[in-house]
């Protein structure tokens, strides 16, 4: 029996795409770092994006254990950006709070100045 070479090629591509991707160690490290950094800034699992990041990293680790490396990379890549977004949101919220505080201070100063006049 002779197989058409196209099927051999397709089979090889399919295998290469799914099974033989290397373990995404560098990406996992990057993503862990992003999660740690977001946590250090003050992100908690109350932030939806941060919870997503933590969950996806757990998933990525399970994928690595199952040698599902491509899925691990996808999860880790998404987790990295989820964590970065969570961090950005926390920082923006903090700056928003600072802004409110600064406005309150200025209002108070304005009032004092008016009374002083």
């Amino acid at each position: 029996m002779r197989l058409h070479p196209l099927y051999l090629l397709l089979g090889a591509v399919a295998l290469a795409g799914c099974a033989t991707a290397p373990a995404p160690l560098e990406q996992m490290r990057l993503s862990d770092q992003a999660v740690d950094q977001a946590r250090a800034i003050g992100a908690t699992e109350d932030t939806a994006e941060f919870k997503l990041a933590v969950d996806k990293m757990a998933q990525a680790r399970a994928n690595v254990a199952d040698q599902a490396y491509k899925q691990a990379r996808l999860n880790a890549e998404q987790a990295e950006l989820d964590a970065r977004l969570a961090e950005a949101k926390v920082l923006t919220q903090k700056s928003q709070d600072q802004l409110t505080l600064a406005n309150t201070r200025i209002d108070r100063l304005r009032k004092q100045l008016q009374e002083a006049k």
Partner: protein
Amino acid sequence: MNRFFLHRMLALAASAALGGCAASVAPTGVLQQAEQHYQAAHADADVQRLAPKDIARAEDSLQRARRLAGYWGSGDDALHYAYLSERYTEIARQHTSLALNQERLAKLDLDRQRLQLALRESQLASVRQQDQWVEDQIMSLTTTDADRGVVLTLGDVLFDSGDAELQPSANRTLLKLVQYLQANPARVIRIEGYTDNTGEQAFNLDLSKDRAQAVADMLVDLGIDEKRIDVHGYGDQYPVEANASERGRALNRRVEIVFSDRLGTLGPARD
């Protein structure tokens, strides 16, 4: 097994293998949404100015998603990059808000400094006003003597006869004097004690010195540097009235405070 059947089987197997790790249908809805969000952020001048890297990455991921959506069997990868693009767009938005807030904060900080300065100035102005009021009060109690300059006379109600202890009624005037001296830190004073002519001269001389010193001590207690205070006793010399009447003697029992000029120069002391 005929050849045709084998071919069909293999074709199925190949597509199943690909399908196992990637959907074959391009997720156009998700992609369109990522595209829309990216375009909206891209058109925002603040995003361009404040988060150019993030928005460039959103574009990069979106292009990959578009490319992959065109390939048969890469649907999941397209979805993945569409997701990353959405995230980069959101991150760009957040970084832009953060930077805008920081710009506002910097501006508010300048406002705050300006207001604080204005407030401090207005407080200073009110202190100056009060100092002026005290100065007016003190000056209304003084006379200007041609030889000695500005002289404040503290009458005998400050002391009982023959006594150098200050009466509590002295406090009000002396407090004002302290305020005046604090507001005019270059000025120095000479405190001169005088008595009536009752009693012996030596005793009166000591008594006059003690009275002047009692006033000086009080000023020092209230925070005036003693280096600014010169103390003299003149006994019954230089009466302001004849000692013949009780009223005259009362006026002669006194302490006088001679002020220096603005630069701290006192006129010469009496002999």
